[in-house]
């Protein structure tokens, strides 16, 4: 029975991943973004778990638990906690919602076109879903480029990281636990550093608009 539902489960998880990414581009509120990020983390964990069950490997399921803890619960909690502590300034987008959703659509198409070339030989179910990961990478990058506030950019960075993780899980059928442990730790560390940095920026300039940091060039 699992064999027939497996593709559907994979489709559900990756669909959620893509949907949450697109919604993050649409919504500008910080709190909404953090919730979406939490959902995305959960979907990623579910994806890993599905792959683990299908392969019957305990290690992959452990990785799924780790992803759930770090990306589904840990990071969103840190972000939400930090956001409550400081007053939020509203994100003034560089791209209006319509245009950004249109761009997301184009990026997704591009991801599919590229993947069809790169993964042409791989016919497995998970490889078919891999373009979603690439699309997430591109969407994350788009968020990085279009958001003004350092904190919103952090969301973009995390989406990008989730995209990379998705591609890794789908194409290699699970990442060794040690590797995932290392990557998670890295991401956690980067988020901490960026958050401390953004907090100090906020204290010093009253906001975290990185467009004001322009003096560092020759």
């Amino acid at each position, binding site marked *: 029975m699992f064999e027939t539902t497996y593709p559907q489960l994979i489709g559900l998880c990756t669909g959620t991943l893509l949907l949450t990414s697109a919604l993050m581009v649409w919504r500008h509120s910080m709190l909404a973004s953090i919730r979406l990020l939490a959902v995305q983390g959960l979907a990623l964990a579910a994806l890993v778990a599905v792959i683990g069950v299908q392969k019957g490997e305990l290690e992959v399921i452990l990785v799924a638990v780790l992803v759930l803890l770090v990306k589904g619960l840990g990071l969103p909690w840190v972000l939400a906690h930090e956001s409550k502590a400081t007053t939020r300034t509203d994100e003034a987008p560089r791209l209006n919602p319509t245009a950004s959703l249109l761009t997301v659509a184009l990026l997704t198409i591009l991801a599919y076109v590229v993947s069809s070339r790169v993964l042409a030989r791989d016919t497995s179910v998970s490889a078919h879903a891999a373009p979603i990961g690439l699309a997430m990478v591109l969407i994350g990058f788009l968020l990085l480029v279009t958001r003004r506030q350092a904190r919103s950019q952090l969301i973009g960075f995390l989406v990008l990281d989730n995209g990379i993780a998705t591609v890794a899980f789908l194409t290699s059928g699970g990442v060794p636990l040690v590797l995932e442990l290392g990557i998670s730790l890295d991401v956690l560390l980067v988020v901490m550093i960026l958050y401390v940095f953004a907090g100090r920026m906020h204290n010093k300039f009253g906001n975290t608009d990185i467009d004001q940091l322009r003096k*560092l060039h020759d």
Partner: protein
Amino acid sequence: MNAVQSGLVVQALLALAAVATGLLSPVSWRSRATGALCALLGVAGIVTGAAALGGANGALTIPLALPIDPLVLSPDRLGGLFMIVVSAVGALVSLFGIGSARGAEASRTSWAAMAVFLGGMQLVPAATDVVSFLLLWEIMTLGSTVLLLADHASRSTVYSAAIWYSAMSQLSFFFVLAGFGVLVAATGGTGFQTLATVPADSWPANLAFVLLLLGFGGKAELVPLHVWVPRVLPEAPSHVAAAMSGAMVKIGVYGALLVCVRLLPSGPPWWGVLILVLGGVSAVYGILQASVASDLKVLLAYSTTENMGLVFLGLGASVLLRSYNATAAADAALVAALLLMVSHAAFKTTLFLGAGAVAHATGELNLDRLGGLGKRMPWTAGTFGLASLGAASLPITSGFVAEWMLLQALIHGARLDGEVVSVAASIAMPLAVAVLALTAGLALLTFVKAYGIAFLARPRSRKASIAREVPWVMRVPLVLGALAVVGLGLMPGPLAAAIAAAVGPVIVPDVHTVGLAGVSLSGIDAVLDPGTLVILAGLVLVPILVIVALGARRHPTRVDPLPWAGGGSRLRPRMQYTATSYAEPLVRVFDDVLRPSRDVEVTHVGESRYLVEKVHVEQTVSDVIETRLYRPVLNAAQRFGLAARRAQDGSIHRYLGYSFAALLVVLIAVSL
């Protein structure tokens, strides 16, 4: 282990020992120890080169961890000849450096770089594959760049010179690398023997020829790649400048010969024409700039461009005539070019070392402030004078022999057995003769100026009037260099025969030794025996001189006091010719080419319009090629840099956008 192999090992060890000594020894004996080791390194190079020139085979194989063929150092006869020349110059300048290097020039870095420079340079002619050639070539360039920077703390101009030198060296290296790359791609091997299998009329051969000629021409100071020369040689310490001009430039010639004699020996006529034009333009342009220069080192630097131009003129004539099967004249031109190369090494090293001695004694190199050094520094003056004779190609010196042979080859070249070889050669050869004649005339003027203004007449400054002769350790290399100039001039036969053997085995010039070590070019019926001529002239002149001397003794010397001195009784140094005034007629004649900028400032006495208190004249001759060819390129690069600055405005968003755009472009390119 045979002589060549052990010689190569000894050279490498001596170079390393010299580097270590330079880095570790205290300042009290650093110059002496490292200079002596560098001189020994030179001697080892001479011995190894002589063995290789004599026909000994030996190879030093250096295996590498990289997945390429091992480096093989094995000088052939031609490589042996160049190794001798370069090492001899290296030994002389090292000895000179012991005495002349002071302050920053004698620092740890400088002496270590000197050893690296000399070691790399001596081993370049031994390379038998592209990788080792380029490696040693770059070691040589690196060492010389560091040496050039010795005085950077005291003079700001050194920086600009070093930047020019590095940029032009890299340009040369790029051309050489690209040229070899084309040949390697066409033949599939990196050894020179494999590269030589490329057909001479194929497009890779043609492309590689042009690239390699530009690359090696840049090192050999050919116009228009010479712009580093007038900046670098005056800024480098004198002994380093001597090594650069006397030896490093020869490596450029070696590269050109490697291409024209070893790799691509049977090129089409236009190759010869290209080399001829490059050489001819360099010769005339170089000597023109030299003749108006008033800084002694700038003068010598431009004169190097002229001499290398003549070497390439001979090489070009050789390639052109060979393509028309005028073998005898082609061989003569090739031997003449190499003879000029060797004699240039002798006289230009001596001249630069002489300039170094002058700078050491007076701290001055501007000819307009020198003068009267002949009496105060007889050794330097004598050797500089003999080397000047060589540079001006006057008899009893090696320069004369070389230019005479070149002239013979050019004159006889256009005809073969009374028949016209080709239209191209009939036009090119007379033009080349004209270039040679013009160059020789201007060279005479230039070195009369260099010697006359610096060493004769009265001192033009206080520094020149209190100059003292340099210590013996600096005199010895000067004397050895001058002896080489005269020795090769009086007995050119053995050297010419050695050169003829060196360019073999494909090309076998018909050169023989005749009379008293004279030289005979049987192919074009030309014989020169300077030794015999000098003895004959001596037999005629000595009796005449004796008779004159005897006659003079019979009549007491008459002293004519000046009845009216015309101001002469108060002769002051300011009344003499200066270097600038001596060259003034020439500047006027070649006004359109040289485009000097003059600045005359007259200060009047009080309110008077007729009484002059002071006249200040300043004349600068800029390098036309630099201002017309390089300036626009540099300005364009600068404008591009400023424009690129606008793209980099410090906005993180913009940088992220660039990365995003780049990522998208890559992805789209992948999916296409």
